[in-house]
Each structure stands twice: as C-alpha cells, then as structure tokens.
C-alpha cells in the first residue's frame, strides 16, 4: 500500500518558552486507511493534526505527502491534496450550506475564484455524501450544531483531497450520522486521519490507532493493540475497562464510574 502521509520525529512548540506540544511524534497514513489519534486533553493531538495538513510547520522532523516534502508544495497544491476540518466551525456565517460546500472547491479554482458547473455538481454530491443536501439553501447561521457539522464535512468532501484530516468530526453528530461519516470515509479511495475522543467509536471506525501523551506516541497499532485497559488507564489517569463487543469482537471501552453514594 502506498504511504500517503509520513511524518517522522516531529517537534513543535507554540512559543519559545512553552513546553513542546509535539515532542518527537511520528505518523503514517496509507492509502485507503482510516487512522485515529487518541489521547487525553492537551496531549498535542490538534497540534499534530495542524502539522499534518501544513497549517503549522514542524520545527524539526520531516513530513512528506506521497514522498514529497511539504515545504515543496504550494499552499494551493497542498489544499488540493489535503483537506482539514478544524475542531470548531464558525457559527454566524450568512452563507448558505451550498455556498459553504462550494468553498471546498476554492483550491481548484482560477485567479478570479469563479466556480463552474462541475464545481456546483461536486458541491451537491458532497452535500449528499454528508447527508446535508436538504439543508443546502439554508444559511449556516440558522442550523443546529450537528447540521452545521455535516455542512462543513460536505465542504471537506467537496475538496476532493486524497487525505482528509478531521479534528473531532463526530463531536456534535448523533449516532446515525457518526455511522454515516465512518461509512463515507471507508468508501473513499484516499486516507483519513481522525482525532477522536470517543474511544468506542475509535475502536470501531479506525484501522489503526495512535495514542498520544504529552506530545509523544505511547502506543500504536490495531484497535485491539492500543485499546488495552492497562495502557488506557495509565494514559488517561482513570480506571478504564475494555470488553469485547459480543457481536463483532471489537474492543469496547468504558470508564469505571462508581455509583455508590455515601
């Protein structure tokens, strides 16, 4: 399998006197693979995601897209090949859902940034893929959190990039739309790197998981390799149970919460 994204020994700190947010992490995403990045708050997940899509430049280490170093790609080339969904979307946009989906076509447009009929088709197809076609004429500011998230997913799909990097894409989605998103990602030819907090979903959706702690990779492999009670309990500093799903055998993660009241 071709390696889409390969980052090696990445280091990044946000300010000279700040601790390293990413401290020697390495990532790889192969074509057709869905890779999940998990870890507690402030583990460096979002910073790593920004390095992987070129929004931040690693201060040391190297990062390549299909063997090509990031710094050799122009901004627009990179945007045609890597799509990024930030954790939070603007809420007060007066643009309609369709106009937002069309924004995903921006890296493919010419100097005057005018879209053609093919771009309109791609935007509609992306809206359908994200189950947001019925929202297309509504201003984004009037949508609910989950609806808005689907519109922004459509924007990412419309970008037609070979690699999708999604920062907590399922946070405001209901169960059905979480499943829809995972299925949509699996259907795509390219690869995806997801940052996830929901460990059960991470286990079910991803081919491989990377567990990040204080900017370093502390565990990596299949969900069964990474989602182990000893590894998780130590990293998250809370007691975690892992049981196999009776139907699929996938690991199911549950925090242990005591219900006794004194």
């Amino acid at each position, binding site marked *: 399998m071709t390696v889409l994204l390969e980052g090696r020994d990445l280091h990044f700190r946000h300010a000279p006197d700040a601790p390293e947010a990413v401290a020697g992490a390495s990532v790889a995403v192969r074509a057709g693979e869905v890779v999940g990045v998990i870890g507690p708050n402030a583990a460096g997940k979002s910073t790593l995601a920004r390095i992987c899509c070129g929004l931040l430049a690693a201060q040391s280490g190297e990062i390549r897209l299909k063997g090509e170093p990031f710094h050799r790609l122009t901004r627009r080339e990179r945007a045609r090949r890597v799509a990024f969904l930030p954790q939070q*979307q*603007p809420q007060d946009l007066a643009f309609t859902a369709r106009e937002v989906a069309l924004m995903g076509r*921006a890296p493919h447009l010419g100097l*005057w*940034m005018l*879209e053609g009929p093919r771009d309109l088709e791609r935007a509609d197809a992306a809206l359908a893929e994200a189950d947001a076609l019925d929202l297309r004429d509504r201003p984004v500011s009037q949508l609910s959190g989950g609806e808005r998230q689907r519109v922004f997913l459509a924007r990412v799909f419309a970008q037609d990039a070979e690699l999708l990097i999604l920062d907590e894409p399922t946070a405001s989605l209901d169960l059905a739309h979480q499943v829809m998103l995972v299925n949509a990602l699996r259907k795509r030819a390219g690869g995806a790197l997801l940052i996830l907090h929901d460990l059960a979903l991470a286990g079910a959706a991803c081919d491989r998981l990377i567990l990040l702690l204080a900017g370093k990779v502390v565990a990596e492999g299949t969900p069964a390799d990474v989602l182990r009670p000893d590894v998780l309990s130590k990293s998250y500093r809370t007691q975690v149970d892992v049981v196999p799903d009776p139907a699929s055998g996938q690991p199911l993660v549950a925090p242990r919460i005591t219900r006794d009241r004194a």
Partner: protein
Amino acid sequence: MKRSAAMRAGLAVALLVPLVVAAAAVGLLTGAGELSLKAALSGQEPDSTVFFRLRVPRVLLAAEVGAALSVAGVALQALLRNPLADPFVFGLSGGAAIGTASVVAFSGTAVGAAAMSAASFVGLVPAQIAAIAGAMAAAFLVFALGRSRGQLEPTRALLVGVVFNSFASAVVLSVESILQPEQTQAVLLWLSGTLGYEAMPLLAGAGIALLVPALLLIALAGRLNLLALGDEGAAALGVDVSRTRLFAFFAASAAVGIAVAFTGLVGFVGLVVPHAVRLVVGPDHRVVLPASALGGAAFLVLADALARVLFRGLGAEPPVGAVTAIIGAPLFVMLLRSRR
C-alpha cells in the same frame, strides 16, 4: 441560489447600471437654478457652462467617491469580520483630518505659499495632497502598530485605528484654536464632507486611480469569502491569509485616501450601502463588491442632489456628509431590524 457567482454578479450589475444612470439623470437635472437640457446640449449660455462645468463634474465626483467608499467598506468589514467597520475605522479619517487642518493653519505663511504652488502644479489644492498624505501615513502607522509576528492582526489594527482617530481629533481641535474663524469654518466643512467642482482631467485621473484598488478587491473577493471561515479555515483551503489581508487593507486605504482628498469625511456611505446590498444579494463578496460599487455611486449622487435642493429656498446648501448621515443613520437601523 442555483446560479454561479459569475452569473449572479452579472445580473446584479445589469440591474444596478440603470439605477446609476437614473441617479445621474436626477443629479444632472437638479440644482440651484433652472436649467434647460436642450439649451445646454446645443451650446447656449449660461446653460451649457452650468451643465458641463458644474453639474457633470459634480455628479461624476459623487459617483466615484460613493463607489470608492462603499467598496472600501465591504473590504474592511470582511477583513475585520465585523459588519460595523466603516472605511475610516483604521484611522484614515484622523490622518486625513490632521493633514487638512495643518494645511489650513499654514496657509497665508511662507510654507503655505510654497505648498500652494507645488500642489497647483499637479492640479490639486494643498489640502487635497495633505489629506492623501495624512490618510496614507495613518494607514502605514496602523499597519506597523497593528502587526504581531509580522502579520496584520485585525483586532489590534482596529484598536490602533480607533485610538489614533481620537488622538487626531484632539490634534485638530488644538490646531483649530489658533485658526481664524473663517479657517475654522473651512476645516469644519471638510470634516463633515462636501462635494466641490473639480476639473474633468482630474476626475478622469481619480477614476482611473480608483479602478486599481477596486479591481484588486474584486479579484480578492473569493478569498475574502473564505476569510469568513476563520484564519485556519481559509489557510486550509490554500489562501495566503496574511497576504490577502495586506492587499485588501492597502487597496481599501488607497480608495479611501483618494475619496477623502476630494470630499473630506463623508460618513455612512461605506456602512449603509454594503449592508443594503448584502440584504439583497447575500454575503458572497464576488457579488457584493461590484454591486456595492454601483450602489454606492447611485447613493452618493442622489444624496448630493438632495443636498442641493434641500435648502434651495434659503439659498444655502448643507454639506453632503450631513445628508448621508441624516439618511444613513435611520436607514442603517432599519436594515439592522429587517435582518432576521
């Protein structure tokens, strides 16, 4: 919204051009005295002189300034992601006011006489050159102080601009205290925004000079749309955010500088016109920018026509800036309330 942005922009322009033509017709046919169009066109005096030397240049000036202020307003509102930004928010009005007030203070002195002869060489009066210089100096100052890590940071620049404008009005007030009453009157008139009569070659030059920032901003329109996604969202789509901001900032400043040199501070145009246009055509800057240019031209031509007839019976004429504010303020509140 099934149509592409190019088609919607074309449609908006096609619908607004007749509006500008109608506004120009109103502007050309209203004034202090009665005028026979037939006599003017057949070269009869004094109608011909009044028409071609006074009314045509004045309507052209109003159209150019209205378009410039509206386009700059749209650009700065996009840049700051704040619909309340107006063309003067970055300190340009303050800079231009200091320039004008100091020229008025120096007139009658040896320095003033030298400036006068230098300025008349290019067909401008010293106050106009001083206004352009002051506005551009303010733009560079705000740009220099509004940066962080080499990038223009909109909120910081906005604060610098607001503070600079207050500082400038204090300077202007201090200068005014040493002026003769008639000089104070001139500065006051300039501060409230007035349209005068300029020579045609100068108007043509200003029109061409305004096309550069206007076309640059229209070319940037697609990127200004993406800025609404936030800096990261725009950058992830391949936009060079800091360069886009830089170009938009200086293009808008140049347009405002040219406008201010001719008319002083005409308020509310850059605020009301973009809002009204967005209400009709939506938020897409590829449509909003050309539509605002035409809408702004029509708006200021009509406001000026109104200014000329408002106190005609008394033989007086209020500054056009007062008229735009009197129409603009309630109109702006109405537009705000009509937004769902």
